[in-house]
């Protein structure tokens, strides 16, 4: 698997993503600077968490227009897998690569803690390592993770099996109490139409090493490695 991690000046989970990928797959990804207009030959692109350009206006708004994002978009169109985590998810929605927006958390506060996610589909290269319906534990750390899209967009996402994860409780129940940030229909991650782009607010790279308290993030990278070699 040849992976690249995009580095914006305010990215701060770029190293974490690279470490997790190297830890799970044994190969360190390439780090690509935001001002580069080209991407190396890769089959997985990670847009990591952080505060891309400070995110003072809207999270991800400025990064969506960076030189590198044009290249990421072009690669995605050829089928290259793109994984946007947290700020990366925000960037992908702002760039129009995924539907919806991430608004300020309903309670307005930054939230950093483990949440439970229900894997809604195993039909993607990112989620094949899980069973549909499985409950996994992954941390969130965000101020703007409140997923919003118009009802018809949400219906379509559901019809096309493009909701990857929802916030849930230990029994897998998807309800308001399990929703940490006010996301519509508890959505924590969505797939693109071609299913090769995944955006998610939780950080799988943060729980891929038992020393850090869990490994529920690891199957994502293992599954990608299986497909991508």
């Amino acid at each position, binding site marked *: 698997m040849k992976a690249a991690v995009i580095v914006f000046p305010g990215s701060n989970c770029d190293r974490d993503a690279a470490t997790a990928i190297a830890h799970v797959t044994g190969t360190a990804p390439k780090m690509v600077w935001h001002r580069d207009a080209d991407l190396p030959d890769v089959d997985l692109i990670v847009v990591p968490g952080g505060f891309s350009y400070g995110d003072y206006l809207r999270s991800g708004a400025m990064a969506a227009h960076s030189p590198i994002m044009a290249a990421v978009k072009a690669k995605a169109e050829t089928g290259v897998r793109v994984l946007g985590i947290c700020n990366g998810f925000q960037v992908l929605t702002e760039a129009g690569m995924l539907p919806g927006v991430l608004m300020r958390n309903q309670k307005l506060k930054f939230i950093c803690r483990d949440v439970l996610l229900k894997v809604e589909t195993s039909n993607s290269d990112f989620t094949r390592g899980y069973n549909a319906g499985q409950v996994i534990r992954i*941390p969130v750390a965000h101020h703007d993770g409140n997923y919003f899209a118009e009802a018809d967009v949400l219906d379509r996402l559901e019809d096309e099996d493009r909701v990857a994860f929802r916030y849930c409780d230990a029994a897998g129940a998807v309800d308001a109490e399990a929703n940490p940030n006010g996301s519509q229909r508890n959505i924590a991650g969505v797939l693109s139409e071609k299913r090769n782009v995944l955006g998610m607010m939780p950080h799988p790279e943060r729980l891929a090493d038992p020393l850090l308290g869990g490994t529920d993030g690891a199957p994502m990278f293992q599954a990608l490695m299986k497909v991508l070699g």
Partner: protein
Amino acid sequence: MNNTVAVTPEIVAEHGLSPDEYDRVLEIMGRAPNITELGIFSVMWSEHCSYKSSKKWLKTLPTKAPWVICGPGENAGVVDLGDGQAAIFKMESHNHPSFIEPYQGAATGVGGILRDVFTMGARPVANLNALRFGAADHPKTRHLVAGVVAGVGGYGNCVGVPTVGGEVQFHPSYNGNILVNAMTIGVADADKIFYSEASGVGNPVVYVGSKTGRDGIHGATMASAEFSEDSEEKRPTVQVGDPFTEKLLIEACLELMATDAIVAIQDMGAAGLTSSSFEMASKGGLGVEIDLDKVPVRETAMTAYEIMLSESQERMLMVLQPGKEDLAKAVFDKWELDFAVIGTLTDTGRMVLKMGGGVVADLPIDPLAQAAPEYDRPWVPGKKQPVLAAADVPEISWADALKALVGGPDGASRRWVWEQYDHMVMGDTVQRPGGDAAVIRLHGTKKGLAATSDVNPRYVAADAAEGGKQAVAEAWRNLTAVGATPLAITDNMNFGNPERPEIMGQFVEACQGMGEACIALDFPVVSGNVSLYNETNGQGILPTPTIGGVGLLPDVEASVGIGFTGAGDALVLLGGEGTWLGQSLYLYALHGRSEGAPPPVDLAVERRNGDFVRERIRAGAVKACHDLSDGGLLVAVAEMALASGIGARIAMDGPAPHAKLFGEDQGRYLVAVAAADADAFVAAAEAAGVPARKLGETGGDAVAVNGEAVALAELKAAHEGWFPAYMA
């Protein structure tokens, strides 16, 4: 202020210089200073920059150990971690600004302490924050808590440094003077530490970071003057932080530090360009000439006075090797930060500032630094309180007492706070907030760093020497409880008005107690900060010498937390039974009384008990460990149970009076060990001279004492519920 503004006695007084001090200015200058020069004297001689009231006593603190690479005097302290690595850390207060503008005050406090650490070549790897607010029911408190916590998080989260620990306390003495103490720990190569001592006549002096604006002018003098009711009305300018720029500054500085371009570097903290340029030149015994027209500014028509005294954030000053300007500029261009060569080092021993083609200030550096006032302020020893007999404390049913303690403002979970902090970014957080000390892995190694922040201001108020000693011992104990070897501390001395002998007495005695503990525990002070005049209308805060402790774990996988790891393990109490209720949380929170002498710390016992615990943890014999502090034994049992969701049953021999369950005798730990190992564990402890008793076992869904139980669910609702309900 235009440089032609006349320096009148009123202006001198406004700058906080006493008539005596001004006479010294005249003597040094050999003439009357102009307004810019006066401004420079005023900030350099402010309490904040000169430590004029505290220096005499700070000097008495032990600062050396074989593993100390650099003690107090630089931007931060440096200790050796072995294998070519060093930890660099410091704690600093941002009390007054946070009271006036809680979000920005706290945010810029975090920004400032981060700069102190990366200035020395370290990548910041962890932040802590020690917060003290007024009474929970004071009308201002909630607003201040909300703003400060959001500000600490807003800054730290954006720069991407995990905030892994801290303290939150409420007490009416902080109603008008909250405390925001922020600590940063960084990691550097031990042979690549950067210092502030300038060298090389003719070397370029370079300004990098954000542009200079009119913000925070007089911040340093503000931090040194007592608050009065109307200062809220005057509302001095506070600075706004820009964490994104700070993040860029960290990356750019570290990138440049990987080359050999930098001779010396210093962040622009309090008193901005003045103190940074002054200190660099002064340490090197050199002079400096600065062209103020070259300083990047964000506003028009800024005067020399304003540029020199501005406290705009996210700025650094460096001395470069000659010829390295282009290399350095390319790095800062890459990170889109301002970069300007603004001056050169000279051999004149003077600071010469030019602007608009003329000289706007010209002052001698050494005499100014050497003549900085240093006071031996009068002090009186604090009145010691008699020991309070446990029998004088009315007994409340233990179950009610426990629920009230873990569910009250002092003992409730701080989750509401630390869940607003990204405590996992950087991917090395092994022990998250909520335990005795946070543990992070040293990136790319098997080793770990532990960090904690501690002080019990009620103890210090009752007996400053014992309280100071206890704060150091508690930090040491918290590090020990996760299995770390305590290395060194940073301190943040928050006190009232030092011109009052009884306050000065608190300061002196606290230093004495701290010093004693540091020596006995091999736990030297390597950096620190003093915040005095925390007083409103003559009402001082509780004396609060916050101790930030750092320890090392040779094998981070061997660290233990406070949560039980399974049912059926044995609980062992180490260090003896509880007896002491004077100044306890039980007495304060349940009876509203702050009475009696605080529990004494026997430093030899402390060390013996701690060394035993640490050794057993490293041997893999301990499954969970918690030191006994506020609330004593039963609160510790409950916290361990709550952290894991696994209950505990303990047996007290005979009746269990409040002093046994809630006494705050020092030097004690509670550990969980495999049931089969319990007897051997107790025997080993006793052989080491450590009193030990098998107390009970883990399991069930309640905390039970002699068969009487309180459901964990009920305790949890109280413990986790207080803070969110309070802030709702």
